[in-house]
Structures are given as C-alpha cells and as structure tokens.
C-alpha cells in the first residue's frame, strides 16, 4: 500500500482505513523521518491537558466544568434533605453506636462498615447523561446507552470504594432544647453532640443530606471515564452545603442565616434555592477525603483483526507490536479493544495508593505493563492536581 501514489488527502485516508493510518503514523516507514506520534499529534504517553472551571452553575451546591481536548463534561452536585422518618429501612441503633463508639469508628475507616450508611440509604446518587449529539453515535429519543449505564455504575462504585465523602458530614442532627439552648450555631452544636453522652435527651440524628451528582457530557471525544471522574471530584471539592437546623415541629430542616432566619415549608425545599440569598445563607464546605485521579489508556495492536490464534501469534515477531495510547480519543477508541483504567491517589504522601484497576478486552496488558502503568498514572495525578488548584 504505497501511500504517496494515492491522491487522497490525509483526512480521507484516515476515514477509509483508520487502522493502517494510525499504524503508519505510530511506526513511520524508514524513508520518512517523521517522529512517531499519534494521528492527533500526541506522543503515545501524552495525555490531553485538563481544564477545570468550578462554580459555574448557580443553582447547584457545587459544580465543575471539565474539558480535556474535545471531551467536555459538566457536573453539578445538589444536596437534598432526607429526613430519617422517610427512610424505609432506617436503623437508628447502628448510627448512634457508630457515633459514640470510637473503636468502631476506627474499624470503619479501615474496613468497609462505614460504607453501610451511604450505600443503604443511597446518600450519593450519581447519574450520567450523554447528551444527544455529543458524539455522532448518540441519537435522540433512545434509552440510556450501555456506555452511560456502565459509566454511572463505575462512578457510583468508585465514590463508595474511595470513601471520598464521609457519611458524618452528611448527617443533620437535632439537639432537644432541654440539653442545650436552641439559639446555637452549627459548629457549637456539633461540638456539643460529640461530647454528649448517650441517653434519650442527647442529640438525635434527624436527617441526611443526599448528594445528587449529575453529569452531562456536552461533547465526547474519547476517554469519558477520566473526564467524568475528574468532574465529580472537582464538583465535590467545590460543594458547599447550607447550614441547616432541624425544626422538630415542622419535621423539616430550615436554613440558618446570618440575618433573619429564612424558613421553608418542606424538608426537600429547604435547600431548594441555593442561589437565593447567597450572601445571607451560611454554608459549610463539604469535606472531601483524598484526591483519586483516573488514568485510562488503550492498547493499539499492530494487527488489525487480532491474532488468529494466540499460540500462532507468539511465534510471529513481526506484526506483534503494540502501543499503549494514553488518554485515547474517539477514533483511537474504535480501533482498540483492550483498555486499562487505573485510579491512583498520591495525596497522602508515601506510597501511591491504587484505588481501582480495570483492565479488560485483551491479553496484551499483563503484569509488567500494569506495574509500569502505575508510574504513568502517578504522572497524570500530578497534572490533574495542578489543574484543580
């Protein structure tokens, strides 16, 4: 296939036979002295720069717009109040004990018991929507695609397994007035409830904040998971929940404000308009633990249609090369079946903690490559951390 003799422009050639086109740019033939690169001009281990813009949505408690190349995703976090009376299978004993028992608390941090509250009461609700037209394959009026469902499962699972949100910060307490004065600000109230001994007149758990994390892909040019996860983390770090007080008479949470108390009628409407009275409403930033960063790469094989048999491919040395393409774009994703996603967190210092590995769709990425990929993911972590600040 002599490329120079063809009179096609590059774009047509790329469209007609994308695999040989990408292969030729990655492995230039001897006469040409072009440096090996991908069709998008990046080196194989070069990711697209991340741009993050936070607090752009005025009606969400936290939001972020993340752009990596032509992949753009917007994430909004909204808190809604869920009174414990409305939880069908609420178990008050478990949480009260957790609050008081210190050793239990420590076990929570190590093991998975602390996950119970977040998971059982569905306090984190991520949802991902791939907007119509964000990529050519997304047509209007169809049910959520497998990609959207898979992505939201992965985000949901990672949110819980990384424990980025502490269930303690989502609890809304009520302290009966016999124990303390009712004109008391949140910090003091919290301090009080931590010191309070057990008993019926101690602070009671009245409600939870439920965080609705909505993601919308404005445009999709490959690597949706990395962008989605970066957006979730940036939006959560941006989230400021309004300080609320539990009103037992109305069985609803009411906003605390610096000036006159702004009250709302229903519990769910308590935080309905965060944009309104923004200056007067007290807010507390949501504590977010760690900074896990996702890093995805795709494996590009030299053979277009895969090795016919695995045993046969071992003997053939030519035609057996492969490239690991970091942060693949859409055209590269269609050519690669094997992908690896690694989520790392270097924020604690010391040894890098891996939060998740997802490798599927092929047999080339083995043990050594996964080990080596941890270093690539660490580099990516630094880039994303710098973009967040």
């Amino acid at each position, binding site marked *: 296939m002599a490329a120079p003799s063809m009179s096609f422009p590059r774009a047509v050639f790329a469209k007609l036979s994308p695999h040989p086109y990408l292969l030729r740019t990655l492995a230039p033939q001897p006469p040409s002295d072009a440096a090996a690169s991908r069709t998008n001009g990046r080196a194989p281990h070069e990711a697209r720069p991340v741009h993050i813009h936070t607090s752009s949505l005025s009606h969400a408690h936290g939001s972020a717009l993340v752009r990596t190349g032509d992949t753009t995703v917007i994430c909004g976090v909204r808190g809604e109040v869920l009174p414990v009376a409305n939880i069908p299978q609420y178990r008050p004993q478990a949480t009260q004990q957790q609050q008081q028992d210190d050793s239990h608390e420590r076990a929570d941090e190590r093991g998975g018991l602390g996950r119970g509250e977040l998971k059982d009461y569905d306090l984190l609700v991520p949802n991902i929507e791939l907007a119509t037209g964000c990529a050519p394959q997304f047509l209007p009026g169809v049910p959520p695609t497998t990609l959207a469902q*898979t992505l939201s*499962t992965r985000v949901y*699972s990672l949110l819980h397994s990384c424990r980025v949100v502490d269930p303690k910060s989502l609890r809304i307490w009520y302290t009966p007035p016999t124990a303390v004065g009712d004109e008391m600000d949140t910090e003091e109230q919290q301090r009080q409830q931590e010191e309070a001994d057990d008993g019926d007149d101690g602070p009671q758990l009245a409600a939870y904040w439920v965080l609705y994390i909505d993601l919308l892909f404005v445009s999709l040019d490959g690597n949706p998971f990395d962008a989605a996860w970066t957006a979730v983390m940036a939006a959560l770090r941006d989230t400021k929940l309004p300080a609320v007080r539990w009103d037992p008479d109305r069985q609803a949470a009411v906003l605390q404000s610096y000036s006159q108390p702004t009250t709302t009628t229903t519990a769910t409407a308590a935080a309905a308009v965060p944009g309104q009275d923004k200056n007067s409403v007290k807010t507390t930033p949501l504590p977010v633990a760690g900074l896990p960063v996702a890093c995805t790469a795709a494996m590009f094989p030299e053979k277009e249609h895969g090795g016919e048999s695995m045993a046969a491919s071992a003997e053939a040395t030519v035609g057996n090369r492969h490239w690991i393409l970091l942060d693949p774009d859409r055209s590269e994703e269609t050519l690669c079946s094997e992908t690896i996603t690694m989520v790392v967190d270097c924020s604690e210092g010391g040894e890098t903690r891996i939060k998740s590995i997802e490798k599927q769709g092929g047999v080339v990425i083995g043990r050594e490559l996964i080990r080596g990929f941890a270093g690539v993911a660490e580099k990516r972590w630094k880039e994303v951390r710098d973009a967040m600040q």
Partner: protein
Amino acid sequence: MTVIPEATLSVLPRADGSARYAHAGYTVTASVNGPIEAQRRDEHAFEAHVDVVVRPAAGTGGTRERHLESILESSLTQLILVKSFPRQLIQIVLQIETTPDNDYVNTKLVQASLNFPIVPSLLQAAVLGLISAAVPMRATATASVVAVVPQEETKRLVVDPSPRDLEQAQSVHVLAFTSYDELLLAESEGDFTVKEWDGVYEAALKICCRPTSTKAGINVMLDDSEDAAGSDMRQFLRSTVEAKVAADLYWK
C-alpha cells in the same frame, strides 16, 4: 455454600449449549446459542457479535448488570474465534440463580455498585456453556476473586470471600486468565499498593493457572497442601468436560 466448584454441562434441552455452575454460594446457568443470524444493528462485517445478557436472581437487570455484561462481552470476544463467523451472533444468557445470603449485611434488592465476586461464576458458566455449544474458541479462561482483608496489623488474602469478608475487605480483585496464562481481565477496587496487587496476582495465578499433570513437566510443588487455598480451576474445567465427553461416548 459450595466450596468446591460444581458444574453440569448441557442442562437445557433447547439451547445450543448450556451449563450450570455453582461455586462459593453463587449458582449461574448459562445458555448459549450461536452462531445465529444477527440483527441488522448488531451485524459486524468482519466478525461475530457476542451478546451477553445477565439476568439477576431477583428483579430486572439494572446498571450493574449492564456493566457486568460489558465486561464479559469484551472478555469473551477475545476467547471466541469471532473472525470465523462474520455477520453472525453468538448469544450468551446468564441467569443468576442463587447468591450467598448474608445475615450481617443489609442487602438491598437493587444495588448499583460493582459486583466483583460474581464475575468468576459468570465467566466460568459462560465458558462451559460455550464449550457445550461447541463454539470454536482460541482459548478457555479461568477466573477467581481475591479479597485483601485486614487482620491485626497484617493483611490476609481471602480467596472466594464471603459477603462478610467483602464487607471488611480493604480491596477486592477479580482476575481472569486464558489457558495460555495470559491475563485476560483484571478488575480491582478498594485501597491497595502495587506490591499488594502483585501478591494478589500470584494467588490468583496459582488458582487459575496451576500446571496440570497432563501437561509436560509435572510440577512437584503441587503436593504441599498449605498452599492449596482455593481450587485448581483449570483442572476443574478440564475434568468437567472430560467427564461429560466420557458419559456421552459411553455407548461406544
């Protein structure tokens, strides 16, 4: 709860191939049909489309099942000789029959999070079903799930963890290997280091890719029994199929 895996081949009379697989409290029945005519939108000009449907033990499938389906689909496409059947469809339906019940953990019917411990059972049932349907494959696969459970300052590797172990586990890993000892699938979540993952890899490799005595070079190290945590999946797969073939050819 079965500690030793159990499997039966060709349990369904009408499907091209089927298998029932039970291990670690999970029972999965797989039915395989193929190669059959593909729907227009699933048709691929160069290869067969592998369609995996996961049906949960209760309720209808949700986002979690879609995720399992996508994992299995990408893995099984690597195993099946899809290039030999262009514009065809190979359909694999996996019905989960039982899951291990748990007295301690509050289990909701519909859960959105990833479900790693069931992946080996699903994959194993699918592979057995494909063998039963005589779908040409370039390799078979074996999978196992390993959890890292903290235990008094040290960490313990638990193969085929119970729901209680999973609740306390620091990290959970699923690894699948082909019969050429290649890493086919690696899914992990939790909190771990590269070193810990290496340990998990070793443990999983030992279960999935133990050299069988029928192969050249009999391994003498097999005899030490303290390492025999977990079963030898490859040997199990082999003996199951051997038993089925022997039973089918009994009349000769």
